[in-house]
């Protein structure tokens, strides 16, 4: 006689799985990958490969020998961290720096908290900020697009945001703008910047694909972008000489990459729609504050990490709308 399997209901399971979600995000990043290789050539390929392989390797080594648990390095999350980390870095960065960044991202940003699902801060951003603070020169020398065969010897310059920040010390916006690439180039990605942040078009294609696959919802990306647009718009309307226009802010820097891929990381973002909106508005405001009034030209990486820290608090107080009112006599 057959031995029946007995388990509690439900006895049907959907097709969802962690690898499907992770690989879905990776597929949505293919346009971005394509564009960045197109603009930054072999440097980009080396940085991306080293980053992905290091992240997977470190996750495997730490899980097997330090944490002594079953390694899950092939579930797609380490690959995704590696890919996103590579997208935050300049394409001419030496490979050993990339490996240090991968170790910081996976080791500090993810494994110290207990592995997948337990981290508070976005691992790719932890890696990036770690490198930013440890190697400030290497992390702010951005190669010019079009140098396909150059790696560490690529010609570098400042990003449009960097130009704007420095320029505003002495000039007005309208005087700086001629040095900034035209808007079409900003949209398509033909500018100095990290591999993943340059092409707004590729990022938006990725976002639409992820929304179609129901991997992310509109709440976080649209709230962040909307808040930045409105906040910088108000400032620009008040003083167009001191403050760049909102479209400039949307298309430059890591804002799009951050809003669509970093802030939407499942583990570190809030669990309810309302919570996600609060989170998104907060990130937008802090990003603009750092960009305009802070010491750094780009603020989105710090803003996201700050609000990752707020996520547990948001989850504690923002609850989904319950079905049915409370009955008075309980």
């Amino acid at each position, binding site marked *: 006689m057959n*031995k029946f399997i*007995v*388990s*509690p209901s439900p006895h049907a399971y959907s097709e969802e799985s962690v690898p499907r979600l992770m690989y879905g995000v990776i597929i949505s990043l293919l346009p971005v990958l394509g564009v960045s290789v197109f603009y930054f050539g072999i440097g980009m390929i080396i940085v991306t490969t080293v980053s992905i392989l290091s992240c997977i390797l470190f996750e495997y080594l730490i899980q097997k020998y330090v944490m002594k648990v079953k390694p899950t390095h092939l579930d797609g999350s380490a690959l995704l961290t590696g890919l996103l980390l590579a997208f935050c870095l300049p394409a001419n960065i030496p490979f050993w720096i990339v490996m240090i960044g991968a170790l910081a991202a996976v080791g500090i940003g993810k494994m110290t908290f207990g592995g997948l699902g337990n981290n508070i801060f976005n691992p790719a951003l932890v890696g990036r900020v770690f490198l930013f603070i440890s190697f400030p020169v290497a992390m702010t020398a951005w190669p010019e697009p079009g140098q396909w065969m150059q790696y560490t010897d690529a010609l570098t310059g400042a990003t449009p945001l960097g130009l704007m920040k420095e320029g505003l010390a002495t000039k007005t916006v309208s005087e700086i703008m001629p040095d900034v690439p035209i808007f079409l180039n900003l949209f398509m990605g033909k500018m100095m910047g990290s591999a993943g942040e340059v092409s707004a078009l590729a990022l938006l294609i990725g976002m639409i694909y992820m929304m179609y696959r129901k991997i992310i919802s509109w709440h976080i990306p649209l709230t962040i972008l909307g808040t930045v647009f409105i906040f910088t718009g108000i400032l620009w309307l008040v003083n167009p000489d001191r403050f760049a226009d909102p479209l400039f802010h949307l298309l430059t820097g890591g804002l799009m990459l951050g809003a669509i891929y970093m802030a939407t990381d499942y583990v570190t973002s809030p669990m309810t729609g309302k919570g996600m909106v609060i989170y998104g508005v907060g990130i937008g405001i802090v990003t603009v504050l750092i960009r305009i009034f802070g010491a750094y030209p780009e603020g989105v990486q710090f803003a996201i990490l700050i609000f990752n820290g707020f996520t547990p608090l948001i989850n504690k107080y923002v609850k989904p709308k319950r079905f049915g009112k409370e009955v008075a006599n309980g």
Partner: protein
Amino acid sequence: MSQIILFTIVTLVAIGAAAAIILYFVAQKFKVFEDPRIDEVEEALPAANCGGCGFPGCRNFAETLVKSDSWDDLFCPVGGNETMAKAAAILGKEAIEQAPRVAVIRCNGTPEFRPRYNVYDGAPTCAIAHSLSTGEGGCPHGCLGLADCVVVCNFDAIHMDPVTDLPVVIDDKCTACGACVEACPRDIIELRKKNKKDRKIFVSCINEEKGGVAKKNCSVACIGCSKCFQVCPHEAITMENNLAFIDSDKCKLCRKCVIVCPTNAIHELHFPPRKTDKTEPAEAETK
């Protein structure tokens, strides 16, 4: 340069001193008077904070000991009589001696004796499996083997035996705190009197089904035949709901009941081998 350093040092020392003085006076002003004996008693307690005494933590138990007049229901199972005597000495009270106890697993439903006829695929905890069905075997009182008792033990005194699928208690480490007793949804674990050399005689079954049904589910079940009850010279055995129960306080370890049990449901542990040819019941040995 050195002027700045000097100025910094002096300022910081001054602030530190001022803070220390303020804190001292505030601590004195808002000091909560606590009977200093509570600290002393707490020192004497084993600091396991296991809840075995029934109170939330050793400190709370220490407070209760100091404040209560009667110590009738107060006992620390982890520290035992030694600790209670120490506490009694500090407070000048009478400590009641209690016979030390140990946790005993009262089920012997191994895969050999209790055939498994279905496979459990739910969350791996006894609490959930218990609400779902009788378990992988047919006995509704049998051990589910999902180790809720192991997880809850603070003293590393209980482990699952992978061959028998039953938990095994390590007598030396067991403090009879009662955590495993509470964790078991089927009440299979009992705190019984600890005898010298860890000797035990107990009915390794708690099923209340009628004999025929019990035997069909498990070949070493207690079938309620009363043979042990009839042979016990010390009136230590009672029969209730088709189940024999040996009171460990009354049992004198004479072993007469073990021989007469037709299903080998009564176990004797850590005794010297007999000269009769009755084979020792096969059970999980305590290590």
